[in-house]
């Protein structure tokens, strides 16, 4: 007979009857919901509208307020969700009530559903009414703006779904525990423990891997699936902030966890024995685990906070760990046992946790698993994404050949910031007269040490560098950043003392790269490092330059230059002297477009062959309005330098390096001193490249510098380092990007000799 029952027959009539009773008996709750929704929705709307009207209405006022209301509505929905979730089925908090409700002729799941449904009905009706009133006020005041109804509907829907997520989460927590306090804590555990543990692991990995790309791991999309709060915020700000369209994905992303939570809650509620009333089903079993997990987490957090947050050393890390362990241990004992007398309960457990924390920290600190240098094999890599900081560009490498080429460069960067790094100091690097002793010395450097004799290291941590002024920190350095200069004869004149200055320039001309290695199997590896404009390691630049991804990038740039409007783009520079009073002469080069096209083509051909020379700056292509594409410029790129000289119709191009250029007004010059002689003191070296021959000369002699400076001009006075085009939005810039004039570091400018004035020292050198 039972098999012939319809669904309606199966649904107990007394459950519906009880539902009706419940709704009527708890009308006070409904009134409360109405008041809360009025205060959260209608009142702010009326106040906002009044305020806006007092200050004058502008076009998007209705849209803006509706957008803000969408967020407020989600917040109030979450609050009501917590309220309902805590209150519904709270009869399990009491043995008396449980005995009563479980003895009456109603199935437990019916009871569970009815109580939740009644509260949802209260919420749905009160929020809908008040939200509708709010939106009606807005629409009547400001008129209907584009997509108004879609936006309002979406915002309301997300509010309702947010309520469901929070409500079902608390129902699940209630099914696992019982009493109000534990229900609240359990909801917190379900909502935040998985993501907290995730960040704990990421934080620990970061202690041994300074190069970890934290933002990537924080923004991993799948994280929102393990944290309902994150999910709600993500969807709310994605949709309630005004995105329109039918948000199927967003609805599902909130609906699915709600269904999962609720299904689990009903299942657990059914399985929950009446005798467990007022007791937590699970808390007693897991409270010890939770206690020591929190203590462990606090210990780790204390360590990370003291070590990283305050930039402390090992002793501070120990201090942070001890503080975190002991304080959290006492706090958890007091909370769990609800008595201060029990604050030291479980000392043995604390001992074990302390040992575990220490082992855990040391494993990461000394990188026992070699996480810092870990890299997937090319066979297991599906894709590598390279993302560069300003100007932002992304290169995706999917070809096996490209991946294999770039891997050594990435592996070279892996060594950066690694404690006790065993860098193979470039034995082949002609820049350093490194004997075996030197190699030994460098390879045993620890973080924080500084050896005054060997300043050949680069700084990744710019802020640290700034803070510690001229102190070198080895937290991020690699000898691969030292450009090999064999091919650049002129630099052979630089002695070891000057190396650091070049290196500094290399640093400040470098860009940050974020690389994400996506394996076929395994966890995505996301790291960051500061590298030369394209590659982290000049040594490996060649590899990248040959890569399909990079060539695609250059080709795209080339195409964009070629695709510009066909018109005469003039190519100009100011032929001004250093003095303000001197006459400025603009030199115009005809066929500028062709010139620029040639330049990118020559660059593209040149870069694979010349990357092993010294990095002397970058050549910047301004293609679109405001968009700059700097490409690394190497000393070996004589063809490119020739073209720059040709663009200026000059025989020589001068690359000048200076600390800080004084304000170019003679008034500031000390009395009785020639202005040019005065500013010449600031220049520390000139590199002069002869057009067409590939010859170059580097000098630091003050007499030479003065002579050159008296006869030269900046390519563009107002825009340092620039050969600028005359187009409104498109022009070509060539030069070296140094740090700003405000800093104490060296800048590099590109200069040329003024017409007909080439100093004798230059003529003699190149004769």
């Amino acid at each position, binding site marked *: 007979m039972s098999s012939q029952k319809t669904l309606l027959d199966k649904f*107990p*009539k007394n459950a519906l009857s009880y539902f009706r009773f419940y709704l009527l*008996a708890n009308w006070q709750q409904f009134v409360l919901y109405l008041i809360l929704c009025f205060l959260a929705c209608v009142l702010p709307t009326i106040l906002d509208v009044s305020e806006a009207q007092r200050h004058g209405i502008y076009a998007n006022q209705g849209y803006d307020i509706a957008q803000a209301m969408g967020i407020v509505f989600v917040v109030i929905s979450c609050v009501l969700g917590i309220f309902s979730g805590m209150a519904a089925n709270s009869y399990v908090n009491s043995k*008396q009530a449980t*005995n009563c409700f479980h*003895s009456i*002729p*109603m199935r437990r799941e019916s009871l569970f559903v009815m109580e939740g449904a009644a509260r949802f009905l209260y919420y749905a009706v009160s929020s809908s009414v008040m939200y509708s009133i709010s939106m009606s006020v807005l629409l009547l005041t400001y008129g209907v703006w584009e997509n108004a109804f879609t936006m309002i509907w979406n915002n309301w829907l997300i509010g309702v779904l947010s309520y469901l997520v929070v409500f079902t989460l608390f129902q699940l927590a209630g099914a696992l525990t019982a009493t109000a306090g534990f229900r609240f804590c359990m909801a917190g555990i379900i909502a935040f423990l998985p993501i907290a543990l995730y960040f704990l692991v990421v934080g620990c990995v970061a202690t041994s891997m300074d190069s970890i790309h934290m933002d990537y791991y924080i923004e991993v999309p799948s994280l929102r699936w393990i944290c309902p709060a994150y999910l709600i915020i993500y969807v709310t700000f994605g949709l309630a902030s005004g995105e329109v369209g039918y948000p199927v994905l967003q609805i599902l992303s909130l609906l699915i966890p709600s269904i999962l939570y609720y299904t689990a809650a009903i299942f657990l509620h059914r399985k929950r024995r009446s005798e467990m009333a007022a007791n937590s089903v699970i808390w007693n079993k897991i409270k010890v685990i939770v206690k020591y997990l929190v203590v462990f987490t606090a210990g780790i957090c204390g360590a990370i906070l003291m070590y990283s947050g305050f930039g402390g050393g090992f002793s501070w890390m120990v201090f942070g760990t001890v503080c975190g362990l002991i304080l959290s241990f006492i706090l958890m004992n007091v909370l769990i046992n609800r008595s201060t007398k029990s604050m030291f309960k479980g000392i043995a457990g604390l001992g074990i946790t302390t040992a575990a924390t220490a082992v855990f920290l040391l494993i990461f600190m000394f990188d026992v698993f070699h996480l810092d240098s870990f890299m997937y094999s090319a066979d297991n890599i599906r894709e590598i994404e390279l993302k560069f900081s300003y100007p932002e560009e992304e290169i995706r490498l999917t070809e096996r050949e490209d991946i294999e080429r770039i891997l050594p460069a990435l592996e070279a960067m892996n060594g950066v910031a690694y404690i006790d790094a065993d860098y193979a100091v470039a034995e082949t690097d002609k820049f350093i007269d490194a004997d075996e002793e030197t190699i030994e010395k460098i390879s045993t450097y620890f973080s924080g040490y500084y050896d005054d004799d060997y300043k050949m290291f680069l700084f990744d941590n710019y802020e640290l560098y700034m803070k510690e002024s001229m102190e070198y920190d080895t937290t991020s350095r690699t000898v691969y950043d030292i450009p090999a200069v064999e091919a650049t004869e002129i630099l052979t004149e630089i002695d070891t003392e000057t190396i650091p200055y070049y290196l500094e320039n290399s640093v400040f001309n470098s860009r940050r790269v974020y690389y994400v290695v996506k394996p076929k199997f395994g966890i995505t590896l996301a790291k960051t490092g500061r590298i030369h404009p394209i590659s982290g390691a000049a040594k490996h630049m060649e590899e990248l330059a040959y890569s399909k991804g990079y060539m695609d990038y250059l080709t795209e740039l080339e195409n964009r230059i070629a695709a510009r409007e066909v018109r005469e783009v003039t190519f100009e520079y100011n032929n001004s002297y250093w003095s303000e009073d001197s006459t400025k002469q603009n030199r115009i080069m005809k066929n500028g477009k062709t010139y620029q096209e040639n330049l990118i083509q020559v660059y593209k051909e040149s870069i694979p062959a010349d990357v092993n020379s010294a990095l002397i700056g970058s050549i910047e292509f301004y293609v679109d309005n405001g968009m700059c594409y700097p490409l690394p410029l190497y000393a070996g790129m004589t063809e490119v330098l020739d073209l720059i000289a040709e663009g200026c119709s000059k025989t020589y191009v001068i690359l000048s390096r200076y600390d800080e250029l004084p304000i170019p007004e003679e008034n500031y010059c000390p009395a009785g001193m020639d202005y040019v002689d005065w500013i010449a003191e600031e220049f520390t070296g000139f590199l002069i490249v002869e057009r067409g021959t590939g010859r170059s000369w580097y000098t630091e002699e003050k007499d030479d510098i003065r002579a050159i400076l008296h006869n030269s001009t900046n390519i563009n006075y107002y825009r340092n380092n620039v050969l600028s085009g005359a187009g409104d939005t498109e022009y070509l810039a060539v030069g070296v990007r140094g740090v700003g004039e405000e800093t104490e570091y060296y800048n590099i400018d590109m200069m040329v000799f003024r017409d007909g004035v080439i100093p004798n020292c230059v003529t003699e050198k190149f004769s």
Partner: protein
Amino acid sequence: MIRTENVTKCFGSVRSLHEVSVTVENGSIFGLIGSNGSGKSTLLRTLCGIYKPDQGDVLCCGEPVFENTAIKEKIVYLSDDPYFLPHSTMADMCQMYRSIYPKFSMERYRELVQKFGLEERRKIQTFSKGMQKQVSVLLGLSCMPEYLLCDETFDGLDPVMRQLVKHLIIDDVAERNLCCIIASHNLREVEDMADHIALLHQGEMVLESELDDVRTNISKIQLSFPKERCDEMEVKLQEMQPLSVVRRGSLFTVIVRGNEESLSGWVEEQKPQFCEFIPLTLDEVFITEMEERGYEFTKDLIG
């Protein structure tokens, strides 16, 4: 008919019921007695579907009770610690029970309200403990149950109300064929009402029988012997395998299994100076049975 078959129920490591089998017919009052913690309340809660037995079956009209809405509509459980909705009045609770129990009789409810003389619109939490018990009984009986499970229901009721409740239950048994199970420590109450009793001890059913059989199967005999024969008779009485023998001078009080008819022959053979068969109260039956099972509270508590 409601019955349990080998029901076992454990709470963690504590075994509250162990293979309890009991059958209660409709139209009868079943007294459930036992020491503290013997499992009386657990058995009642298992019978009405609050607890799910770990082993065995609880059947009512041949169907399992647990989560069986149709069967539970026939059963009302009056808890020893009744629950009412927070801040509710009797009228509110009436509405609740009315929505849940299809046979709830408003007529009966009004009649009982009058009989008990309770204020319908007053918040129940302001009632005394005894009055709350009355509300519980009132609501329970208004549901017109076929099975009424009373857990210490008479505790806290004044004698008048106790009589009223007794009469109401007895009337329902007589008129509606109600099956009532009363768990109580107050054996006098049970003795007055029950036609069947069951004795639980440490979760096990020690005794289950009609009340009259219980009384007749155990006899209390007072015997007196000449002073010189007393020592001899003290030994001799052990042949009866008495449940207890108390000697005060030459007067012996013996409790022994068996009825007067079967024992009188042996007693007369001993030629006592005085002999009298005294009827046992349920209290005495309870204490005797419990003492036999090692529950010797008199020695421990009284000394």
